[in-house]
């Protein structure tokens, strides 16, 4: 049954070829290729996941014939397969949700390029998840940046280009630091494959050499990836990038792109440096601090925001703060909580973006809150979805937000030092979330007696309505049946090392 | 059990009956019902006095350990007699007085309710029952105070309500503490405190005692909390203010007796700071009351201030914790009750007939209504304490009790203050009689017409004055009855 072993490699290459292939096709055909590509991807990753669960351990897939130290290889475990599957599902739903708006956002002859960029983005994401080689990771990080920048820019109004430029500048800074970190790592260990680097680092640490370079390397890589995933102090580019891009692009960017980088950081922490070396290098405390500040200031600036999409963008800065707070705790439970939050945030954020677009559509396309009053009645489905998304964000039971909040608090209590700040900030950020999300929910449900804008009839937009419904189902599934997923994550994490 | 329930039930039933149905229109049927009610109540109460003396009856249990229990002892009987006599006299007096008043039916309704509750108060056997009737007394006497329905009457009523409730809650606080530290809940002469709790936390118990005594003394118009009495009593119609001053104020006195002698025990409070505090407060009130009365032009306000000072005579006697002083204050309870009631009724009659309320307008009154003014004079003599009347006797016992109680400061200051205030009492009561009978030269006597009040008004005043004089002349029966109480 080892045919499934090379499914991950097939998945990555298939996306690349689909991208190249659809660059020649017309708009309609490229769209078709893209959707069935994503469906195939879901199939492949699902098979890989089931295979790795039955295998019970991660397996290595050597790319080409060259053995370990020189050749390139993928390492596939339960956690990687789960994340890959989840990302593909989110991408499929976002594409499905944003398709009807694509017509008036991107001018027709450029839509096939849009699908090319999406295919490249998916391939780089999968590669980031599966690769076991650092330099390949760097190359796919760059591919990811370029395709994300393309996705931001594709709407061609002044705002998006300026946002794309800002995005590019910050990302390039981040990848510059990452590259420098990788080179230093190569300098110290002489290897590029993660597992070999790990043994070399263990010997280095054992002999007590290179203590300072090791510390600098860890700092460079963490700060580099933090910049790329918009952690608190480096989040200036995020609101414009997510606020003004196309519908499905915003959903995908906010939920998947930054998560790819975070997962790469997790793999480096576990597989390359080793979690205990990473912890006593005290970088985790700095990440913890940034995470806490992100949670507070992200929500504060979201409260001040007047435009609904920028508000949701700022709220993802806060949620990324949650994830880094989980890293900062340094314990295994903290890591499980962060990974679960990656999943729940991805699901909730894309749901919120797609629902917000539906609301703005029935309010004459305007995004300011004043126009959104009563839009919940005009567009019933997106009103309900937005409410579900806000409740998930606030952490009301029955939705995914509650479970991640539960896991975070349980993790926080276990380590004595960080317990009190984490708990208090968690409570405060819940209150702040409640303030700006619930304000919007109440606003969209205050009826306007005779509103000039026409209501959206869902029969005509059946694809959009089904996408929203599937999003809600995904969120509730994460919220109610979270036990198997948490178990998958924890033993996937054990395999990761 | 049946006699008790009928005794309380009949006035209560009459009260509710009068309050609730609105179709009693003409006055004749109303007065007949009211007089029937009075007669029935009198008969039943007298019968229950004889049959229920010294019986303990538990009606039902409010909570597991809080029974509503009735027990008529000698002190209760004394107060019950006072209440019945004064209420009957004032009741018959009000037949003619209330002619030109509005809402007469409601007035009689609440009048009966207050009578029923007062009887309940006197019969109460433990502190919960006492507190229940104490609070109901405030609530039911409120409409009597507000009978006039003027803005001033309503404000006075509210002030009366809030002062009394504040007092009630003070004594409830004391009772909460007491409840934990007492052996049996019912009143027991000599105190029912647990021996070990007296030893364990005496200070707490003293605080509880202070709160309870302070609570009841609010109703008795003691110094810091006497503000409501001079505003509430004069505002009510004359018979109601007679009842208020003579009897309802005594509810506070009965409460203090129950607390000192039946809950904490005289021995526990002997020589404590509590005793000195309340002795000084009562003396201040005695002196301050008569001083304010001296300067007051309106007759009913003057009588109200006199009530403040006279009741503090009684309190002074109680706080001495001494046998003769106790009998003296009991005598003063009865004496003051009769005399103050007759004074208020006379004032009522004067207002009813001549509409004059201020003292300086009473010149030549003796010519117009000689019999009434004679009764007024005899009662004021009694209040001042001139020998033949009851007032002298009680003041005599109070002074003797104070002297041989050997309390360092108060044993001699007490009698001095009593004498001073007796002088002041003469100062504010006698001018009325003098101006009434000897109007002076320029008063032209032939212009006045005979305006004697009709029999309904005159008879009660006569009865009350005769009773107060009888108390002074033939006290042995009463003294014998009171002597057996203080062991």
């Amino acid at each position, binding site marked *: 049954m080892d045919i499934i072993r090379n499914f991950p490699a097939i998945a990555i290459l298939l996306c690349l070829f689909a991208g190249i292939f659809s660059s020649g096709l017309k708009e309609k055909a490229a769209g078709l290729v893209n959707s069935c590509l994503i469906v195939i991807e879901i199939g492949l990753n699902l098979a890989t996941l089931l295979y790795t669960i039955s295998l019970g351990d991660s397996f290595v897939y050597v790319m080409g014939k060259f053995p370990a130290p020189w050749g390139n290889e993928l390492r596939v475990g339960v956690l990687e397969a789960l994340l890959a599957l989840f990302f593909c599902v989110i991408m499929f739903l976002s594409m499905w949700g944003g398709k009807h708006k694509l017509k008036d956002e991107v001018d027709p002859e450029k839509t096939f390029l849009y699908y090319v960029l999406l295919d490249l983005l998916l391939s780089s994401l999968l590669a980031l998840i599966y690769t076991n080689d650092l330099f390949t990771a760097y190359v796919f990080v760059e591919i990811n940046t370029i395709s994300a920048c393309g996705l931001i820019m594709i709407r061609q109004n*002044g705002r998006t280009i*300026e946002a794309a430029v800002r995005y590019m500048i910050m990302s390039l800074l981040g990848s510059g630091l990452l590259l420098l970190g990788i080179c230093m790592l190569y300098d110290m260990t002489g290897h590029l494959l993660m597992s070999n680097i790990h043994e070399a680092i263990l010997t280095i640490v054992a002999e007590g050499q290179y203590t300072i370079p090791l510390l600098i390397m860890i700092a460079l890589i963490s700060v580099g990836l933090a910049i790329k995933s918009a952690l608190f102090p480096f989040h200036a580019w995020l609101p414009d990038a997510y606020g003004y891009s196309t519908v499905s692009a915003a959903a995908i960017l906010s939920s998947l792109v930054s998560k790819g980088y975070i997962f790469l950081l997790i793999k480096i922490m576990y597989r390359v440096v080793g979690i205990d070396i990473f912890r006593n290098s005290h970088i985790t405390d700095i990440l913890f601090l940034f995470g806490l500040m992100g949670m507070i200031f992200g929500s504060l600036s979201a409260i001040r925001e007047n435009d609904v999409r920028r508000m949701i963008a700022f709220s993802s800065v806060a949620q990324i703060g949650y994830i880094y707070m989980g890293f900062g705790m340094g314990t295994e439970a903290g890591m499980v909580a962060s990974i679960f939050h990656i999943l729940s945030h991805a699901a909730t954020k894309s749901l919120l973006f797609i629902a917000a677009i539906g609301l703005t559509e029935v309010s004459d396309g305007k995004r300011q809150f004043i126009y959104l009053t009563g839009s919940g009645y005009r567009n019933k489905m997106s009103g309900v979805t937005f409410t579900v998304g806000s409740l998930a964000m606030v952490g009301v039971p029955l939705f995914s937000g509650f479970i991640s909040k539960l896991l975070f608090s349980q993790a926080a209590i276990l380590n004595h030092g960080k317990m009190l700040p984490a708990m208090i900030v968690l409570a405060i950020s819940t209150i702040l979330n409640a303030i700006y999300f619930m304000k919007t929910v109440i606003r969209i449900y205050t009826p306007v007696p005779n509103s000039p804008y026409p209501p959206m009839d869902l029969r005509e937009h059946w694809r959009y309505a089904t996408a929203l419904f599937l999003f809600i189902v995904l969120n509730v599934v994460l919220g109610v049946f979270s036990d198997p997923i948490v178990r998958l994550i924890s033993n996937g994490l054990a395999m990761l090392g | 059990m049946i006699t008790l329930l009928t005794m309380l039930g009949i006035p209560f039933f009459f009260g509710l009956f009068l309050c609730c149905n609105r179709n009693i229109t003409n006055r004749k049927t109303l007065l007949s019902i009211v007089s029937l009610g009075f007669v029935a109540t009198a008969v039943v109460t007298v019968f229950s006095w004889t049959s229920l003396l010294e019986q303990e009856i538990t009606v039902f249990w409010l909570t597991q350990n809080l029974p509503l229990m009735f027990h008529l002892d000698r002190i209760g009987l004394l107060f019950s007699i006072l209440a019945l006599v004064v209420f009957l006299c004032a009741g018959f007096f009000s037949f003619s007085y209330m002619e030109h008043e509005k809402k007469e039916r409601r007035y009689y309704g609440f009048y009966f309710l207050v009578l029923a509750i007062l009887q309940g108060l006197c019969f109460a056997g433990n502190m919960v029952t006492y507190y229940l009737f104490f609070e109901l007394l405030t609530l039911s006497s409120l409409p009597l105070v507000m009978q006039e329905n003027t803005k001033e009457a309503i404000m006075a009523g509210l002030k009366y309500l809030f002062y009394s409730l504040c007092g009630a809650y003070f004594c409830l606080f004391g009772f909460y503490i007491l409840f934990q530290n007492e052996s049996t809940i019912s009143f027991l002469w000599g105190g029912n405190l647990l021996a070990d709790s007296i030893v364990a936390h005496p200070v707490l118990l003293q605080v509880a005692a202070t709160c309870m005594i302070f609570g009841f003394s609010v109703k008795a118009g003691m110094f810091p909390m006497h503000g409501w009495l001079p505003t509430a009593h004069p505002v009510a119609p004359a018979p109601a203010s007679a009842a208020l001053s003579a009897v309802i104020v005594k509810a506070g006195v009965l409460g203090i007796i129950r607390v000192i002698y039946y809950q904490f025990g005289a021995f526990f409070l002997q020589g404590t700071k509590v005793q000195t505090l309340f002795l000084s407060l009562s003396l201040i009130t005695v002196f301050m009351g008569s001083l304010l009365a001296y300067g007051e032009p309106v007759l009913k306000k003057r009588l109200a201030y006199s009530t403040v000072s006279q009741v503090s005579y009684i309190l002074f006697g109680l706080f001495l914790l001494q046998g003769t002083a106790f009998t003296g204050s009991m005598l003063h309870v009865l004496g003051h009750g009769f005399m103050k009631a007759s004074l208020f009724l006379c004032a009522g009659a004067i207002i009813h007939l001549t509409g004059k309320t201020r003292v300086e307008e009473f010149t030549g009154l003796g010519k117009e209504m000689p019999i009434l003014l004679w009764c007024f004079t005899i009662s004021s003599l009694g209040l001042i304490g001139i020998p033949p009347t009851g007032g002298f006797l009680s003041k005599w016992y109070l002074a003797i009790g104070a002297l041989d109680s050997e309390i360092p400061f108060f044993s001699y200051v007490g009698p001095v203050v009593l004498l001073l205030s007796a002088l002041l009492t003469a100062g504010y009561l006698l001018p009325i009689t003098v101006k009434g009978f000897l109007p002076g030269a320029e008063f032209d006597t032939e212009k006045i017409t005979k305006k004697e009040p009709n029999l309904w008004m005159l008879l009660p005043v006569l009865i009350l004055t005769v009773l107060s004089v009888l108390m002074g002349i033939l006290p042995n029966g009463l003294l014998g009855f009171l002597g057996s109480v203080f062991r």
Partner: protein
Amino acid sequence: MGANLLANYGEAVAMILFAIGFGNLLIQKNLIKKIIGLNIMDSAVYLFLAEKGYVNGRIAPIVVDGVQSVEAYINPVPSGLVLTGIVVSVSVTALMLSLTIRLYMRYHTLNLDEISTQLRKEGL
């Protein structure tokens, strides 16, 4: 500290160049200068990487006149990495330049802050 700094001066120069490039990319207002800073930064990293592979007294890893033994040549892997790195930075620079041209055509300025003020006026 000074001794081994002189010993591997290559890495020191690379670090300085990296700092210059990073500073330019971050602080400069003009877009073109930012892109120039980007290229300096990338080339500095590739210098650092190439320096890693260099062994004194050996020649570049191109097989010349049949010499097969490994000791003759320097470590080829970093050079390979440098090649991929250069490809990446070329494509990124191309993208940045095209974006700058579009912005210039719309707003006739290369200063990023001016562009954002004009955008706010447009109220998009």
